[in-house]
């Protein structure tokens, strides 16, 4: 226990970085997910192909490989970002592909009649998506989106591999000093579990609050 209490400030900083990375990445991944899901149902074949290509590429590569590629390969051609930014971009891009598929599944639950009625009152494609299709499609997949957000939280620990000092890296650093892996990593694990429980609670709350009367 001493190992945890004496290094509370390092671990605390790590936890804050993990939370920041999770929040920033979740927002980015959601926006990207909605954009890519929209591409995948667009009336223009080229846009659909772009959406499909995005999902196939990002889903079929390991996140760690993407992180390493982005952080160590891009600078060799002159593109580099701060480490936190790099990790946020890569994780958002990666989780965005998974969110896009969940959102597309949600959109598919909305009946064709809803889109037809939206078009019949003169809404454009974008307007019917925004006011009619997405509000109903997203409600149908709140739970899977929550699951992906939890997976995203866990995946932020991979940022440790490219030098971001988030919770896992902070725990690792503390353990190198104290050599008490059980205490240190159990403590870090409990913190992750707490964060995941919070995401789960928020998901459940949203699902109850936004339920469509049927």
């Amino acid at each position, binding site marked *: 226990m001493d190992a945890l209490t004496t290094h509370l400030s390092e671990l605390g900083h790590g936890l804050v970085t993990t939370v920041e990375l999770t929040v920033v990445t979740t927002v980015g991944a959601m926006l990207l997910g909605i954009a890519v899901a929209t591409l995948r149902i667009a009336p223009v074949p080229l846009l659909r192909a772009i959406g499909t290509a995005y999902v196939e590429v990002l889903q079929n590569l390991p996140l760690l490989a993407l992180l390493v590629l982005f952080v160590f390969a891009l600078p060799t051609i002159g593109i580099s970002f701060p480490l936190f930014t790099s990790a946020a971009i890569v994780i958002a891009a990666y989780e965005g592909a998974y969110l896009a598929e969940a959102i597309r599944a949600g959109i598919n639950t909305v*009946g064709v*009649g809803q889109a*037809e*009625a939206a078009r*019949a009152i*003169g*809404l454009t494609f974008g307007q019917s998506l925004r006011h009619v299709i997405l509000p109903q499609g997203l409600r149908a997949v709140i739970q899977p989106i929550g699951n992906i957000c939890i997976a995203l939280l866990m995946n932020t620990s991979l940022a440790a591999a490219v030098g971001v000092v988030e919770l896992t890296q902070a725990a690792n650093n503390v353990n190198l000093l104290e050599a008490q892996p059980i205490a240190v990593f159990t403590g870090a694990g409990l913190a992750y579990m707490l964060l995941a429980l919070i995401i789960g609670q928020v998901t459940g709350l949203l699902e109850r609050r936004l339920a*469509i*009367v*049927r």
Partner: protein
Amino acid sequence: MVSVRGLHKWFGPLHVLKDIDLTVAAGEVVVVVGPSGSGKSTLCRCLNRLETVGQGSVEIDGEPLPAEGRALARLRADVGMVFQSFNLFGHKTVLDNITLGPTRVRRTSRTEARQQAMTLLERVGIADKADHHPAQLSGGQQQRAAIARALAMRPKVLLFDEPTSALDPEMVNEVLDVMVSLAAEGMTMIVVTHEMGFARRAADRVVFMDDGRIIESGTPDDFFAAPRTERARDFLSKILQH
């Protein structure tokens, strides 16, 4: 108001509309009848381009139907449509269903759109349901809300695609009554229906379709009393027997 010339429509190899010519004057109520699969609904859906047109032309108020994009959206705003399965937006209250089009397409202010919506809801007799969600309404009430939603756009013409086919028998009349009063007020209407009573009461003209063609067209009195074609006689004998 509506002018259809030489309209053809194919679903793959299936030729569902064959050389349709139809002109509907402003204020006219045209009822389209015919056996199922005769192309009535497809014709109706071609008029606001929910179905693409294979060949031929459709003009609304002198304007050819644009192929896609914003111009098509603008034109659709002027052509109201009432569906067989209501298609009210499930996540919105009845009032919000009605104000969505006016506020987003016509840029009417929210307060004005709400007032207008309440007037329309009173008119169709469900003002007390304004804050309910569609699923909390009966079928007849949902369809009346859908008619109010279409009317809120102040359309030049209203299309009805079998508006009472999904309703329990005791709810059919509450919807038909609204439609009859609209017809009496001079709304231009094209109604695909199996309700021959409505055709008798409210139609200026009955159009009989079979196998993708318009076979016969005339006043309700003439059509029901003395159909000119064998196919129309056959159809009427089947549906009027009981």
